[in-house]
């Protein structure tokens, strides 16, 4: 059984931390083996150093420390060249190797706090394990089945004692407590207090409450319950709240573009940020900043206020003139005197400065805060408010970009468009809130079942488009068949309403010369054909 992306990311994070911890030791060995300033350098020392450089290159690259990997690669290359010749390494070659070894050890200088920053906040907590405390086994079974559909690994307990024993063994990501059978949820609240007594950080908790009044809400807040959910509620409401609690730590690494007057300084900054789990790129020269932005679209730009060709703020103003980058946060590194000068000239009113030298922790925090702000802002405008999926415009843009990429790289790309069967009738019969709930459930299910690299957008109404890079249509067909089965087994609605429904899917693949518009039309046409085959049909365009 294949696991989840989150599972893999968590396990990779552990390996990455190990690598970071062992790195100083490896680098000091590299320092010890580099050619001496004077005197001979033995052949087998060279061979050992080459293997060490090769190993750092590979590991650093695998864990995303690109700068470190590039420097190790340079060192490896120089040694390989020296070893390939018959004559012993010349003084010049040895000097170059020494320098490359020094550059590598410098880039890898990582302090202990960086390792802490890169570590997940709750090590050892299973990412999808969810515990449910519910005295009523019948209700518990239904809820567990539903939670499983959304990718959680739920486990039910009938008593608070049994729950506490399980928690002592393995902490779940969320505890869900069903207090809906009680007139006032006193027992449920007592269970939460017992659960989180002396626990730091506390385990996030959700209370399903049978009554929604101020008294119960107050008691829940005082007990430290994170989410108070009047029950019964729509299952999609519950899931989105759970997702919110369970994924608070979950971030793709921030991308930071760095432009510095001094390459060594810029590389040091890059290493500092990478050690905190961010991805960085050092831009080669100020006048090539636009190329660098296109090649490595960042979440923020970090640059020196004083640059060789112009000032940082001038360059920042140029970057902000481009619509794509008009909202890119820019943080300037400046000397105290430069900041004074900028303030005096009145030019720096809206700009963000950090005075050099910036302590490592402060720099990381400042960069992360700005990158995060831009991310949340972007997510807001590209997201459909009802489903949280990409907006029509946003998914259209991704389709254009991915079609171009697939064409250029000669890689497979599949577009699937689906809609809910007889959605209009469903809305008429049960009302729009129920229809909206169905859509939200489907959106959530898709997000759970698809890869992070897949793009999901709402085309309007009940039509959803899914773009699957690196995926052939046959694979997509299999995937949507599994999702179709899961969706068919779900019930939607809130109090007093329980509906089940299905969706139909049309699948088309990109091919050489096919435009994004043509691909979209092909998928839509295939969807229409699928709909003629009855509810729940999946159809792949004939090639």
């Amino acid at each position, binding site marked *: *059984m*294949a*696991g*989840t*992306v989150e*599972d*893999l990311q968590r*396990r*990779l994070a552990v*390996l990455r931390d*190990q*690598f970071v911890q062992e790195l100083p030791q490896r680098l000091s060995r590299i320092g010890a083996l580099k050619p001496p300033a004077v005197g001979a350098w033995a052949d087998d020392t060279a061979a050992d150093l080459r*293997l060490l450089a*090769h*190993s750092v*290159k*590979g*590991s650093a*690259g*695998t*864990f995303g420390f690109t700068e470190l*990997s590039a420097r190790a*690669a340079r060192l490896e290359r120089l040694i390989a060249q020296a070893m390939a010749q018959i004559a012993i390494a010349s003084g010049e070659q040895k000097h170059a190797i020494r320098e490359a070894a020094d550059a590598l050890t410098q880039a890898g200088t990582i302090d202990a706090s960086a390792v802490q920053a890169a570590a997940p906040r709750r090590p050892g907590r299973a990412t999808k394990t969810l515990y449910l405390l519910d005295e009523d086994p019948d209700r518990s079974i239904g809820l567990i089945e539903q939670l499983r559909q959304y990718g959680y690994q739920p486990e039910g307990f009938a008593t608070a004692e049994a729950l506490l024993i399980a928690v002592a063994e393995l902490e779940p990501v969320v505890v869900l407590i069903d207090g809906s059978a009680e007139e006032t949820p006193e027992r449920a609240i007592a269970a939460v207090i017992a659960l989180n007594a002396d626990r730091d950080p506390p385990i996030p908790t959700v209370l399903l409450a049978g009554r929604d009044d101020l008294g119960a809400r107050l008691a829940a807040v005082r007990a430290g319950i994170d989410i108070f959910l009047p029950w019964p509620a729509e299952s999609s409401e519950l899931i989105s709240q759970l997702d919110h609690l369970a994924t608070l730590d979950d971030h793709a690494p921030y991308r930071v573009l760095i432009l510095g007057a001094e390459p060594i300084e810029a590389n040091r900054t890059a290493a500092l940020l990478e050690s905190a789990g961010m991805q960085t790129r050092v831009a080669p020269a100020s006048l090539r900043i636009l190329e660098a932005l296109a090649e490595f679209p960042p979440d923020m730009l970090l640059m020196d206020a004083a640059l060789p060709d112009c000032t940082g703020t001038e360059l920042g103003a140029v970057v902000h003139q481009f619509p794509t980058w008009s909202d890119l946060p820019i943080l300037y590194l400046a000397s105290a005197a430069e900041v004074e000068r900028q303030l005096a000239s009145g030019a720096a009113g809206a700009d963000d400065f950090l005075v050099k030298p910036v302590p490592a922790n402060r720099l990381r925090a400042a960069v992360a805060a700005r990158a995060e702000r831009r991310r949340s802002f972007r997510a807001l405008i590209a997201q459909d408010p009802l489903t949280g999926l990409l907006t029509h415009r946003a998914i259209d843009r991704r389709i254009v970009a991915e079609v171009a990429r697939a064409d250029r790289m000669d890689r*497979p790309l599949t577009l699937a468009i689906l809609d809910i069967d007889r959605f209009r009738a469903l809305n008429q019969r049960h009302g729009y809130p129920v229809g909206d709930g169905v859509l939200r459930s489907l959106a959530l299910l898709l997000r759970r079942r698809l*890869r*992070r*690299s897949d793009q999901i957008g709402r085309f309007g109404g009940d039509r959803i488009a899914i773009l699957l890079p*690196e*995926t*052939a*249509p*046959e*694979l997509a*067909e*299999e995937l949507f068949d599994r999702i179709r089965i899961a969706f068919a087994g779900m019930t939607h609605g809130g109090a007093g309403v329980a509906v089940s429904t299905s969706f139909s899917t049309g699948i088309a*693949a990109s091919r050489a010369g096919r435009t994004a518009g043509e691909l979209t039309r092909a998928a839509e046409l295939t969807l229409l054909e699928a709909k003629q085959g009855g509810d729940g049909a999946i159809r792949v365009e004939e090639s």
Partner: protein
Amino acid sequence: MSERFPPLDRILYVDDEPDIREVAKIALEVMGGFTVHACESGEMALAEAPGFKPDLILLDVMMPRMDGPETFAALRQIEALNAVPIVFFTAKAQRAEVQALLELGALDVLAKPFDPMTVAQTVSEIWMRHHGWDG
């Protein structure tokens, strides 16, 4: 689809780098659901491959002592294994090197460092293509 292709389950992964070996093993197991046996050298692969009976072998090119191509040649001498497809991983991935590896009889050549998120899918696709899929 599973009816059309023989299933890919057992993968032998050979790499001297402990970090990368661990990442590859986890990525293939977690994302691909494969059964992965990792070996730290060509010698170890030769000793353990016949017992493990892999469906597919992933082989690092640059290893100390016995490198990838040497391991490849030695594996081909083992009768029980000479039909098992072999895919190379290489950090160089230059045209001439890739060409040379393919001429040796490798099924495919993948670049290092690989993306742990997608490597399982890439391997699946190589497997399916090997069995006649033209996606």
